């Protein structure tokens, strides 16, 4: 995390210096590309010093795109259900056993579950072992399958990044 913040600030500094030195059109696309290039070069350079950080950045990027995909697919599902006359939804509350231990991990996981349309985290039990999730689409009332989907999707990828 510290490395990430340092790299972030360094990339911003480099971008501003780059546009002061070199005469190229200054707009959002070129600035974003310069920033990403600087960040990429810094990420390559860290290979010899901090191996875990080197491995984590691709995980973060792939997790971001996975989350974006889930968000859009679930939104389209809910939107389709709203504009067609029959409700296809089978809602239910599932008790998701947590592998995440610390408060930060549980917070991020609950927020990600809430952000995906169709699932809403309602409450965490007092011993922080169980997360109660309200889900709209439980296919054939198969609660275990939905639990495995969340555990193998969000939780596994999140824990790979934080640990």
């Amino acid at each position, binding site marked *: 995390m510290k490395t990430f913040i340092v790299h972030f600030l360094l990339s911003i500094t480099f971008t501003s210096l780059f546009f002061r030195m070199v005469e190229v059109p*200054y*707009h*959002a*696309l070129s*600035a*974003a590309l310069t920033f990403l290039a600087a960040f990429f070069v810094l990420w390559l350079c860290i290979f010899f010093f901090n191996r875990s950080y080197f491995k984590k950045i691709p995980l973060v990027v792939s997790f971001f795109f996975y989350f974006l995909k889930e*968000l*859009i697919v*679930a*939104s389209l599902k*809910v*939107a389709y259900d*709203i*504009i067609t006359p029959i*409700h296809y*939804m*089978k*809602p*239910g*509350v*599932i*008790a998701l056993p947590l592998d995440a231990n610390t408060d930060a991990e549980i917070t991020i996981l*609950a*927020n*990600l579950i*809430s*952000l*995906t*349309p*169709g*699932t*809403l*985290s*309602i*409450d965490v*039990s007092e011993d922080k072992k169980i997360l*109660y999730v*309200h889900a*709209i689409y*439980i296919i054939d*009332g198969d*609660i275990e399958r939905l639990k495995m989907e969340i555990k193998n999707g969000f939780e596994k990828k999140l824990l790979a990044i934080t640990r």
Partner: protein
Amino acid sequence: MESWVEIVSAIFIYIGVIFLVISSVGIIRLPDFYIRMSAITKAATLGIGFIVTGITIYFNEVVIMNKSITIILFMLLTSPVAAHVIARAAFRNRVLFWEKTIIEEFKPYLKEHGAMPETNVDKADLPGKKQ
């Protein structure tokens, strides 16, 4: 060149507006409180995200890009927290679940907190009134 930028940004903004309209219809159409919460808040997040992205593409300036990234970041941070807190307050105040909802796994926790909705339990057991 300019017209392409306009067309792409217009497509983004239209998609965002369509999501917002559909989520507004959903507030009226969906069967119960929890489904509304979980379906609506995020559709609104996605809609606003698309609209802001469209604006960024149209203006193509660094200042506006920074602002729109900040807007999207704070939307992603705040909207799930708000949805979670409202849903938690709702089940503690015995807001009813839809009758098709499967709440078998949630029942022990509800009983523990004395927040069992009245359709699933005898009315004599509960001190509170049904709203």
